[in-house]
C-alpha cells in the first residue's frame, strides 16, 4: 500500500515527536526552568480568552450542575435540617464558652492571637481552568500579582479550605488543591483538640484523611476540623489558625497502627469550584482583650 520511503518517513515523524515529548518532560519536570516562564507567559496571554469562555459556558455548566443537584436535593434537605438543629445547640454552648474565655483571658492578661477570618483580607476570584487530570490537583484563577495574590497564600471556597497559591503571574494564579498528593495541612479537631496532618486520599476529593492523631483521643463523628495554624520561633504553618476544613465522617481504629486515621468530608466541594477567596493577609496578633 505504501512504498518504503513513505513508511520510513512516517516512522521517523513518530519517533521525532516521541523524542521531543520526552525531552520536554525531562526539561520541565518539577516545574520552573525556562519552560515555566513560557508557560506563565502563555497563560497570561490566554487567560482573558479563558475567562470569557468560562463566563460564556457557565449557563451550560449550571444546567448540568442543577440536574445533578436536583437528584441529591431531597437527601440533602433532611441532612441539612438535622445539621441546623445540632449547630444551634452547638452555637449556644460556644457563645457561653467564648464569653467565659474572654473574661478569663482578661483576668490573667493573656494576649489573644487572631484566627480566621479576622484580618485575612479575602480576595474573591473566579476559577477559569481546572487541570485536565483525574487527580484534582490544580485550578487556575483570574486574579494575579496585580490583585495582591502571592505564592503560599491560603485559598478557601464555600467556607472551607480549598488549597494554596503555588504560582502567580500578572493576571492569573495557580492554586494547588488540598486534594493534590503533595498537600499536607496541620489541623485540629474541635472541640476535642486532637491534632493531626490532613492528607488527601488520591482520586477521592470528598474524603480527606487526618493522620497522626494519637489513639487515646476519642473523636466523634461530625466534629469540625479546622487548621491548627501551627507556629514556632522558626517555622509557622502557611494556613492561619481556624480555617474550617471539614467534618469528621469516619474514624478508623486499627489496632496495629500507632495512630488513628480520621476521615474528613471537606466543606468545599473540590470537584465543582466556580469561585474561591484568596486570603491575602495573615491575621496579626491583637492587643490584650479588654475585660467585658
Amino acid at each position, binding site marked *: 500500500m505504501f512504498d518504503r520511503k513513505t513508511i520510513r518517513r512516517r516512522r521517523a*515523524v513518530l519517533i521525532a515527536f516521541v523524542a521531543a515529548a520526552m525531552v520536554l518532560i525531562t526539561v520541565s519536570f518539577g516545574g520552573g526552568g525556562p519552560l515555566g516562564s513560557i508557560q506563565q507567559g502563555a497563560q497570561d496571554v490566554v487567560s482573558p480568552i479563558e475567562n470569557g469562555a468560562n463566563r460564556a459556558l457557565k449557563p451550560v455548566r449550571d444546567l448540568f450542575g442543577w440536574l445533578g443537584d436536583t437528584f441529591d436535593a431531597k437527601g440533602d434537605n433532611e441532612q441539612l435540617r438535622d445539621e441546623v438543629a445540632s449547630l444551634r445547640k452547638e452555637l449556644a454552648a460556644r457563645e457561653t464558652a467564648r464569653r467565659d474565655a474572654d473574661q478569663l483571658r482578661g483576668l490573667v492578661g493573656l494576649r489573644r492571637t487572631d484566627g480566621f477570618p479576622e484580618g485575612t483580607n479575602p480576595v474573591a476570584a473566579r476559577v477559569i481552568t481546572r487541570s485536565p487530570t483525574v487527580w484534582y490537583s490544580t485550578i487556575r484563577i483570574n486574579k494575579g500579582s496585580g490583585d495582591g495574590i502571592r505564592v503560599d497564600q491560603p485559598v478557601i471556597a464555600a467556607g472551607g479550605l480549598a488549597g494554596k497559591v503555588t504560582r502567580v503571574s500578572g493576571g492569573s494564579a495557580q492554586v494547588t488543591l488540598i486534594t493534590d498528593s503533595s498537600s499536607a495541612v496541620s489541623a485540629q479537631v474541635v472541640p476535642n483538640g486532637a491534632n493531626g496532618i490532613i492528607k488527601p486520599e488520591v482520586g477521592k476529593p470528598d474524603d480527606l484523611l487526618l493522620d497522626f492523631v494519637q489513639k487515646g483521643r476519642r473523636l466523634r463523628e461530625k466534629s469540625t476540623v479546622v487548621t491548627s495554624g501551627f507556629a514556632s520561633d522558626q517555622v509557622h504553618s502557611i494556613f492561619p489558625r481556624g480555617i474550617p476544613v471539614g467534618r469528621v465522617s469516619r474514624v478508623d481504629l486499627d489496632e496495629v497502627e500507632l495512630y488513628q486515621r480520621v476521615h474528613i468530608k471537606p466543606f468545599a466541594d473540590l470537584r465543582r469550584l466556580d469561585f474561591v477567596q484568596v486570603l491575602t493577609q495573615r491575621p496579626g496578633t491583637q492587643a490584650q482583650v479588654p475585660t467585658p
Partner: protein
Amino acid sequence: MIPTPGAFLRVGGLLLAAVIVQLSGLGQMRILGGHLDFVPLVVAGVAYYAGSVSGAATGFGAGLLLDLLAGQTMGASSLVLCAVGYGVGRFRELRDPSHGLLPIPVGAAATAGWVLAFGAVSFMLDVGAAKVSGLVFREMVVTVLLDTLVALPVFGLVRRVIRPVLAVDPLERRRRRQRPRESGPLGLRGMEV
C-alpha cells in the same frame, strides 16, 4: 493533509478552541461523576480523516497546548495524544473502514487510550501515591461513555473544518467507489470494462 499555511491555521484554530473549551468549560462540568473530554476526540477526528502523520502532529500540538495552558508538566499530554493520533491514523490507513458510524467506536477507543495512558503518565510524574481511590476508574469510564455519545458530531465538525485542506477525503473517495455504475465506458449499462 496538504501541509499549507491554511491547513496549519485550520487545525491550530480547532485545537486552540478545543483546549480552551475543555479547560474553561467541559473540564469543570460534572456529569454523573465524569466529564466530557473534547481534546482526544478532536485529535482522533483529525487522524481519522487525515492519516497517521497528521494525527501524530495534531496530537503533539494539542498536548503542547494543553500542558502550556493547564500549567502541568510539559510533554506529558503530547506524548500520549501523539500516540493516540498516530494509532487512529494507522487504523484508518490499514483498514480503510467504510461504516458511517465508525467514529463512535474510534472516539471511544481514543478517549479510553487517552484517559488511561495520561492517568498513568501523570500519576508517575506528579502523584506517586501508594494508594489510589477506585473512584478514579469510575470517572475514567464515565468520561469514555460521555465521549462515545458525542463522538459522531465532533468527528463531523472536525471533517467540516479540515475538509478543504485534505489531500484525499476518505469518505468522499468511498462514496465514489460505492456509487452503482449506471453504464460502462462504452455506454453499456452494467458493463465494467
